[in-house]
């Protein structure tokens, strides 16, 4: 075995006072070898990106290393002066970040930002820098590199921006590339492309890559070796195959088990069941710009002639990438958004054109669960009131509404005492349960879950999905489940509608969609699911 290019030994990083624990990283030791991709994997708050940031000398202000060492090139980088660190950064160790939106300076052209890397290390003439920038952009596979070089970041898509970041990182042929959740903010197809790019570049340049992620699917796609972190400690490390196929630590096992499996079960077709919700010819266009002073408006067809049917007791998944219009459909159904045309028949009555009291009444039967567990509960209301407000608005007495709230809390496995507490006293998963309780308070027949588990860590996600499935069964609900995550869709949905650019490109039973996709787009989507190949291989 070769000598490690980076060696982290007994690293301890202290958090500022008042944090939930004393050390972000507690006695962590691992090596990074040349030419390998090491994945550091963990849930949010596990401290997975701290050691990498420490190696770059880029820790947040109040967070500082208090013990151990990080050996690079035979020296402890923790002991380097700022000037020496500057020489190291970008030249020997480069880094890319999670948010391609904010990681580029919005006011500078792409080529200037790339050229800066050479400038920082006093290399090349300005002209050569510009030429190199084009070469790099070409290498990372940006279409029309000349044009991209002249562009400002906001003119590029998320994937392109991440490619620009990679180009910058590659500029000086660093020995180590640190990738801190580089694909988390990207759509699944884009993610697949970026992962492939990183893999290819790593092979071509023989770099060592430290890849930080929370997603085991991604790990399966890219990792040579894996280190799993929990609460600032490495609980398990090994080759990708060892860890994924045969996890030793209980926590790793739990995490892997929580990943929704791709194999959708074959369910009975909803024949004979009565449709509860019928959507026909739904259209919605956005007009942006314009207004009082006659600027030219821009029209986006967010929902383009969508037809759906939802039967009692059924779960319909709507999947698609960002901008596909899947959320717009959901919002049109509950009339948080006014559709331009089309009918939304709820138990036979069209509610697309209702307004005022009639709409309020109709909405009782169709409720929604939201994505963000932090933004979906009013921080200034107690949980009891949050749940009871709906019934009270429909004339239920306060006493009765609160009594029902207590019952609902129990239904979602929360303590009844919760009614007197504020949302901020609960964790993300608990908050999502409160959100579910609120949706149930009006005794709806249809629930629309809009990315309801996307913001949750994978272990919590599994619990919430179980709860939803359970409630659906017990209360005979029909569920529309909107998600970008095909694994989740596969696990929970009976039928799936795939959306692209406002249109439903394919709809059918879940197993049929996964096993025998009819449209090219669906196929691309499914193939892009990280870890799919490995899973298929494992399945046999």
């Amino acid at each position, binding site marked *: 075995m070769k000598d490690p290019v980076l060696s982290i030994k007994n690293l301890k990083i202290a958090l500022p006072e008042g944090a939930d624990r004393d050390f972000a990283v507690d006695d962590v030791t691992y090596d990074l070898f040349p030419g390998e991709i090491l994945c550091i994997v963990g849930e949010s708050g596990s401290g997975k990106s701290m050691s990498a940031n420490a190696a*770059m000398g880029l820790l947040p202000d109040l967070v500082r290393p208090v013990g151990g060492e990080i050996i690079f090139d035979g020296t402890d980088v923790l002991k380097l002066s700022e000037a020496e660190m500057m020489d190291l*950064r970008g030249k020997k160790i480069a*880094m890319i970040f999670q948010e391609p939106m*904010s990681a580029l*300076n919005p*006011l*500078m052209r792409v080529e200037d930002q790339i050229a800066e890397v050479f400038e*920082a290390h006093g290399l090349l003439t300005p002209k050569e820098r510009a030429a190199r920038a084009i070469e790099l952009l070409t290498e990372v596979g940006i279409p029309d590199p000349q044009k991209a070089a002249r562009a*400002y970041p906001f003119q590029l898509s998320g994937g392109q921006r991440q490619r620009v970041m990679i180009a910058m990182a590659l500029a000086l042929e660093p020995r180590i590339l640190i990738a801190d959740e580089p694909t988390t903010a990207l759509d699944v197809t884009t993610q697949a492309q970026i992962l492939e790019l990183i893999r290819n570049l790593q092979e071509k340049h023989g770099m060592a890559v430290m890849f930080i992620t929370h997603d085991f699917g991604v790990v399966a796609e890219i990792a040579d070796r894996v280190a799993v972190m929990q609460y600032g400690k490495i609980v398990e490390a090994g080759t990708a195959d060892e860890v994924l196929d045969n996890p030793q630590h209980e926590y790793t096992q739990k995490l892997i088990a929580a990943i929704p499996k791709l194999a959708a079960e074959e369910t009975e077709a909803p024949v004979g069941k009565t449709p509860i919700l019928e959507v026909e010819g739904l259209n919605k266009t956005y007009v942006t710009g314009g207004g009082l002073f006659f*600027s030219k408006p821009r029209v986006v067809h967010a929902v383009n002639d969508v037809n759906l049917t939802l039967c009692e007791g059924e779960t319909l998944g709507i999947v698609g990438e960002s901008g596909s219009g899947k959320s717009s459909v959901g919002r049109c159904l509950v009339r948080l958004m006014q559709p331009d045309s089309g009918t939304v028949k709820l138990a036979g009555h069209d509610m697309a054109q209702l307004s005022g009291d009639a709409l309020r009444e109709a909405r009782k039967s169709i409720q929604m669960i939201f994505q963000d567990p932090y933004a979906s509960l009013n921080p200034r209301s107690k949980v009891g009131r949050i749940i009871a407000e709906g019934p009270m608005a429909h004339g239920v007495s306060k006493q009765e509404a609160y009594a029902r709230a207590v019952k609902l809390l129990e239904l979602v496995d929360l303590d009844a005492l919760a009614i007197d507490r504020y949302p901020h006293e609960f964790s993300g998963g608990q908050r999502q349960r409160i959100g579910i309780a609120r949706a149930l308070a009006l005794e709806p027949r249809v629930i629309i879950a809009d990315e309801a588990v996307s913001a949750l860590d994978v272990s919590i996600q599994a619990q919430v999905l179980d709860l939803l499935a359970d409630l659906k069964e017990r209360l005979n609900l029909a569920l529309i489940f909107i998600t970008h995550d095909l694994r989740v869709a596969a696990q929970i949905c009976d039928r799936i509608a795939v959306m692209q650019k406002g249109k439903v490109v394919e709809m059918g039973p879940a197993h049929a969609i996964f096993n025998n996709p009819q449209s090219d787009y669906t196929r691309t989507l499914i193939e892009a699911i990280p870890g799919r190949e490995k899973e298929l291989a494992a399945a046999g």
Partner: protein
Amino acid sequence: MLRFILMRLGKAAIILIAILTLNFFLIHAAPGDPAAVMAGEAGAADAKFIAQLREQFGLDKPLLTQLGIYLKGVLQFDLGYSYRQQMPVADLILDRLPATLLLTMTAFVISLVLGTAAGVLASARVGKWSDTAISTLALLFYATPLYWAALMAVLLFSVYFNWLPGFGYETVGANYTGFRRALDIGQHLILPATTLGLFFMAVYMRMTRASMLEVSQLDFVKTARAKGLKSGIIQRRHIFRNAMLPVVTLAGLQAGQLVGGAVLTETVFAWPGIGRLMFEALAQRDYNLLLGVFFVSAAMVLVFNLITDILYRFVDPRIRVA
């Protein structure tokens, strides 16, 4: 770009007319009219004399007719005639405008340059004594009544030390010309411009400091550091430019408001500007003149807003292209 400017000018014209209309009604709601004031000044007057003046000034017509006549004039770039001062309003304003612009623009530049410089300095030394000193000074400037600062400055620098002239636009009767005159005006300018600039200097300082610190937490700064850039370059190229965006917005607002807001300074320093003119016109119900001053100062606001927007488009590519 041209289309954008034209559109903004059209919008500005509508706002201007609205402002004129509002002020027209406001000023006519006030007790007394210029005829009575002028009759009063003549030392004696009878009702017939006043009626004669009113007829002459067109004040006997219905209010809406008067408004119509006035606005029609304005649309033809005629701001009317000041009967009180026996001069066309435009001439009166143009007489005074240069002094006001000189004062306010100097104050503006002083406050912007010193304020942002101090803000950058403070942000670079967060928590150190120089940051504390600058921040404290900014707080003091922020809380000091402008006119009081002006008075104290006169007392100290003009009366006590006798370093700088304490009033006026230039040495009266000295009849300097050329460079000597510019120097003289410059000396007269120092105290009023500085005191007028104090408050906004504080605002810029605080805003720049906060904005610099905020931007320095953003991801792209981390990217820049990861490239191995020197912190000086990061400060200048990455943080400062982005941090200036809100400052530019504020500066545009301030520059516009300064013209109408210099009344106090002009009062204390006997500066022959628009602010004084407005105050006098108001007390004498010199309707056309007052409306004219409002027209000009509101136009200033709109012009500076437009300049800001254009500048902003220049600085921020997101707005330029979108």
